[in-house]
C-alpha cells in the first residue's frame, strides 16, 4: 500500500500562511515607509532665448513637458554684469551643487570640462553623442582621462544649435564668373584679383571684423596649422610650429590689406556693430567672415528692402556660404565655434535622481521640437541630426550643408583664457594697424603671457 504523501500539501499550506503573514504585516505598518519626500526640482542657468522658445512651445505644442517647465526646473538668473567675471568658476571650483545644469559657451565648456567640473553625459546615458552633428559634438567633448581614467573624449555639454564663423560670399557674382568658392587663401586672392577689377561696385574683396578680430583670426590661424593650447589645455603657442603659423596667418592678412581687405586706416569704419554685414548687404565686398547666425540678419535686411543703395542684395540666392579658407595643403578648414551648450555640474550629481532630472531637462531644452522651432523662427542651425532632417528653412539648410557639413570642416573653440585672448587681441590690433610686425607682435604677446606663470 502506498502511503499518501502529505508533505507537499503541508508545505503549500505553510507557504500560504507565510504569505498571509507578510501581507498582514504590511497592513500592520511593517511594510516600506511611504515616500514622503517632495519631488525635487533642479536648478539651471536662466537665459532669455531659451525661455522664449519654451514659452512658444508651451503655447504651440500644448505639451505638459513645456507647460510644467517652471515647476520642474528652477532657473537662476545670471545678471549680465556678472558674466564677464565668470561667476560659476567660484562655485564649481569649490564644489558647489548649484546650479545643477549650466548653459556654457564652448570655450567655458572646455575649461570646466578639463577641470573635471562637468559630468560626462554619454557614459551616464544622459545624452547620446551620436545624435549630434559630429563636428559640433567634438567641440563639446573633452578628455577626462585624468579624472575618470577613461581614454578618449567625453561629451560634457549638449549644444542646442550650431554657430561658428564662416565665409560669406556673393554667390551670384561667383556664378557669373563661373567660379567656385575658395578653399585656400590663394584661391580667394585669385578670385578677388579676377573679379574686383571688373565689378566696380565691390570696394573690398574680403571683410573681417575690426573689433574682436581674434574671433575671425583663430580659424585662419588654425588653417595654417597653429594652436594656442593643445588638447590638454596647455599653452603651446610658443612652440615653433605654432609661432610660425601665427606669424604666417597674420602676414597673410596683412598682405591682403589695402588691396583685398581695407587698409589700416579704413578699419575704423567697421568698428560699429553691424557695419560688416551692412557692407556685405550693400554689395561692398565679395567675401566676409562672420558668424553663421548673420545669415538670418542678412535675410532680415533683404526683407526690409527699399532705401538701399544700388548693388544691394535683393535675394538670398545672391548669398553663398563656405568654410573659412585654409593654407594650401592643410587638410582641414576651421570655424571658431560660438554655440552654447547645456552641461551638468558634476558636484550636483549626488544621487541618480539628479541624473534623471538633468536628462529630462536636456531632453526638453535641446530636444527636437525645441531645435526645430529655433531653426524656423531664429534661423539657428540645429545640432541634432534628426532635427536637421526635418528642417524646412532653406537658409538654415544652406548654412549647414555648405559649411558645417563639409567633410574637412573642424569646429574648434577659442582658448578659454581671457588673459590669452586679451593679449593676442591686443597684439593683433597692433599688427593689423601697422604698429608692429607680426614677429614683434607675437614676441610681445609671448613675453607678456610668460610673466604670469599661473595663467590657466
Amino acid at each position, binding site marked *: 500500500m502506498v502511503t499518501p504523501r502529505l508533505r507537499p500539501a503541508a508545505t503549500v499550506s505553510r507557504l500560504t500562511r507565510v504569505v498571509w503573514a507578510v501581507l498582514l504585516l504590511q497592513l500592520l505598518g511593517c511594510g516600506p515607509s511611504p515616500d514622503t519626500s517632495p519631488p525635487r526640482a533642479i536648478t539651471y542657468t536662466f537665459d532669455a532665448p531659451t525661455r522664449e522658445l519654451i514659452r512658444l512651445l508651451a503655447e504651440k505644442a500644448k505639451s505638459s513637458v513645456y507647460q510644467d517647465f517652471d515647476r520642474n526646473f528652477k532657473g537662476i538668473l545670471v545678471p549680465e554684469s556678472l558674466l*564677464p567675471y565668470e561667476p560659476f568658476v567660484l562655485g564649481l571650483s569649490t564644489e558647489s551643487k548649484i546650479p545643477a545644469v549650466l548653459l556654457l559657451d564652448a570655450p567655458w565648456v572646455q575649461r570646466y570640462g578639463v577641470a573635471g567640473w562637468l559630468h560626462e553625459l554619454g557614459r551616464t546615458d544622459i545624452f547620446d553623442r551620436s545624435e549630434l552633428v559630429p563636428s559640433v559634438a567634438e567641440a563639446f567633448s573633452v578628455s577626462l582621462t585624468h579624472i575618470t581614467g577613461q581614454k578618449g573624449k567625453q561629451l560634457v555639454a549638449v549644444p542646442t544649435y550650431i554657430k561658428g564663423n564662416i565665409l560669406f560670399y556673393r554667390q551670384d557674382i561667383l556664378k557669373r564668373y563661373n567660379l567656385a568658392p575658395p578653399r585656400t587663401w590663394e584661391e580667394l586672392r585669385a578670385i578677388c584679383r579676377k573679379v574686383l577689377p571688373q565689378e566696380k561696385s565691390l570696394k573690398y574683396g574680403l571683410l573681417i571684423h575690426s573689433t574682436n578680430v581674434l574671433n575671425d583670426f583663430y580659424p585662419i590661424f588654425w588653417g595654417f596649422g597653429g594652436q594656442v593650447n593643445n588638447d590638454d589645455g596647455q599653452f603651446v603657442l610658443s612652440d615653433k610650429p605654432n609661432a610660425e603659423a601665427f606669424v604666417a596667418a597674420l602676414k597673410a592678412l596683412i598682405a591682403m590689406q589695402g588691396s583685398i581687405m581695407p587698409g589700416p586706416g579704413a578699419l575704423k569704419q567697421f568698428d560699429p556693430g553691424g557695419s560688416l554685414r551692412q557692407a556685405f548687404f550693400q554689395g561692398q565686398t565679395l567675401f566676409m567672415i562672420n558668424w553663421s547666425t548673420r545669415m538670418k540678419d542678412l535675410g532680415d535686411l533683404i526683407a526690409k528692402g527699399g532705401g538701399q543703395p544700388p548693388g544691394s542684395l535683393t535675394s538670398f540666392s545672391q548669398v553663398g556660404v563656405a568654410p573659412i579658407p585654409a593654407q594650401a595643403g592643410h587638410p582641414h578648414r576651421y570655424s571658431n565655434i560660438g554655440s552654447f551648450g547645456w552641461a551638468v555640474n558634476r558636484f550636483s550629481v549626488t544621487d541618480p535622481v539628479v541624473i534623471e532630472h538633468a536628462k529630462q531637462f536636456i531632453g526638453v531644452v535641446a530636444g527636437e521640437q525645441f531645435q526645430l522651432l529655433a531653426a524656423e523662427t531664429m534661423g539657428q542651425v540645429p545640432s541634432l541630426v534628426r532635427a536637421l532632417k526635418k528642417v524646412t528653412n532653406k537658409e538654415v539648410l544652406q548654412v549647414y550643408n555648405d559649411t558645417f557639413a563639409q567633410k574637412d570642416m573642424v569646429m574648434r573653440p577659442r582658448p578659454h583664457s581671457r588673459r590669452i585672448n586679451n593679449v593676442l587681441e591686443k597684439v593683433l590690433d597692433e599688427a593689423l594697424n601697422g604698429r608692429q610686425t607680426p614677429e614683434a607682435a607675437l614676441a610681445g604677446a609671448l613675453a607678456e603671457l610668460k610673466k604670469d606663470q599661473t595663467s590657466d
Partner: protein
Amino acid sequence: MNTSENFIRYSLRNRLFVLAGATFFLCALVILLFFPLLNLTLEGLQNRTINSMQAAAEVEATTISRLLVLEFSSLKGLLKVTPASNTETDQWIKDLLWEKVTFNEIIEGVELIQGQKDAEGRHLTYLFYRREAPELKPMPGPQKIMKSFQGLEKDLINSITTQQRVDNTIQESVNRGPKAEGEMLLRYMPVHVLLADEGAVFWGVAKIGIDTNRMRQLLLIQSQEQTNIRWNIWVEMILSLFISGVLAMSLIYFWVRHITEPLRTLSMVTGALQGAKPEDFDLWLENLKRVDAQGQAEVVVIQKVLERLGTAVPKLGQRLIDGEARACLGKVIARGLPVFQARQAQLQALEQELGHGEATGPAHQTLTLVRARIDMVFDDLSHLWSDPKDQWDRIDVTPGLQRAWRLATIGLPAEVTQHQEFAPLPPVWGSEAKLTLAGLYLLAFAVDLVPPAGELGIKVETSPAGGVRLTVWVSGNPRSDAECQGWLNPFGDPGRIQGSLGPALAAAIASQHRGSLTVAPRESGGAVFSLELPPLAASQEPHEPVI
C-alpha cells in the same frame, strides 16, 4: 516517602503554579533579550547620528569656507602681492584675516596660500590661527611668511593649483586627525580673483580651519543621553517586568486556586476514606456528595463514580459480613459433624437398649445427658444461625460468648487443652447477636491456629475501665507483630487477601460498639486476641421515668 508531602509537591495546583511561573520567567527572559538588541540599535543610532553630524559639520565647514573664498575673490590686491613686498595690500589682507578669525568663533584659522611657488618650493602664505588649545602658544597676529608644505597636504595644494578645484579624496586624508595648529576640521578651497576683463583668475588656495569643539560637545552630550536612555529603559523594563510579574502571579494564584478547588476538595474527601472507620462511611459519603464540582466535568464524573461505589460498598460489606458469619457457622458445624454423628449413634444405641418404657438408672441418665447435649448444640446453633433483629440494648455478653465457646470447641481433638474462665460481667451497650458473632469469629480463627496438642483458652472478665474484656489465646508457632496486624487488615495487600476475615470483622464489631480489638503474639508462641468493650455511659444507665 511522605504521601502528604508528595501530594503538596505534585498537586495540580502546585504544578500549575510552577508552570505559570516558569512560563512567566521564560517570557521575561525573552523580553530581557531585547535589551542587548536595544543596545545594538542605540549603538547603530549613535553611529548614524555621529556620521550625520560629521557630514553636517563638513557641509557647514564647506559652506563657511566657500563664503570666505567668495569674499577673497574680490581681493584684487592678491594678484599684486609678492614675497618681497610689504605694501598696504599685505597689511590689508592680514587685517582681514584677523577680523575673520577673531570675530568668528567657528573659524579657528585661515591660511591664504599663493599657488605659485618659489625655487625652493615655498609658497607665499598669509596665516592666522586663534589657537585656543591650551598646549599651543597664542599667535601674536596674522603673518606673511614663505611656507613649505609636505606630504598629502603638499599633494593637495599642488592638485588644487593644477586643477583649480577641491579634490575630496585627498582632502579627507589631509583633514583626518589632529593638526599641528590644533585639532580642527580643515577645508582647502581654490581662490579665484574675479576681474572684469580677464574673468576668474586663479590665485591660490585658502586653507580654513573650522572649530570642531562644538561637534565634540554634541557627541559627548549625545553619548551621555544615550547612556541615560539605556539606563532608563533598563530600569523601566525591570520595573514593568516586576510589576507585571507580581500582577500575573497574583492573578494566576487566584485563578489556579479557583480552578483547582473542586478537584482538591474531592481529592481530600476521597483521601479521608483511607483513615475512615466503618461508622464514618456514611459521613464520608455525605461529604463526597457535598463536594462542589463548580461545573467541572472531570470532577463531576469522578464524584458520581465515587458516589456509586460509596453506595455499593456498604451493601457489599454487609453481604460479606453475612457470608462470613454463615461460613464461620458452616465451618463449626462441619468440624462438629463427627461428634454429632457419634452422639446420634450413641443416642440410638441407648434408646434401643432402654426401649420405650420409662426407665431409670445410669443408662437413662446418660441418655438424658446425651439428649441435653444435642439439644444444647442445636439451641446454640439456632441462636447464631437465625437472623436476629439487630437490637441494641443493655446486655450481658456472657451467654452469647459461652454459646460461641461451645460451638467453636466442638470437635476439637482431645489432645487440645481447653481453658475457659467466665467471670461475672457488668452489662454493656450493644447487640448481643453481633458480639456473640465477634466472639465466634475470634474463637473459630483461634481453633484454626491451634496445633494438635495445643492450648486454646477464653477469658471473659471486667476490664479495668469497668467494661468487658474478652481474651482469646491460642498456643502454637511464634507470630510476629506484622502478622498479627495483618489479620486485622486483610485488605492491606490487595494481592494477598487471606482466607478468614474473622479477626477483621470482630474488630469492626468491637469498633462499632466503641470498643477495640488488639492482637499480639504470645511469648510462648501463638497469639492473644483481646477485645474490650467500654462500660455503659451514664445515658445508657437505667433510670426511672420522670412523671
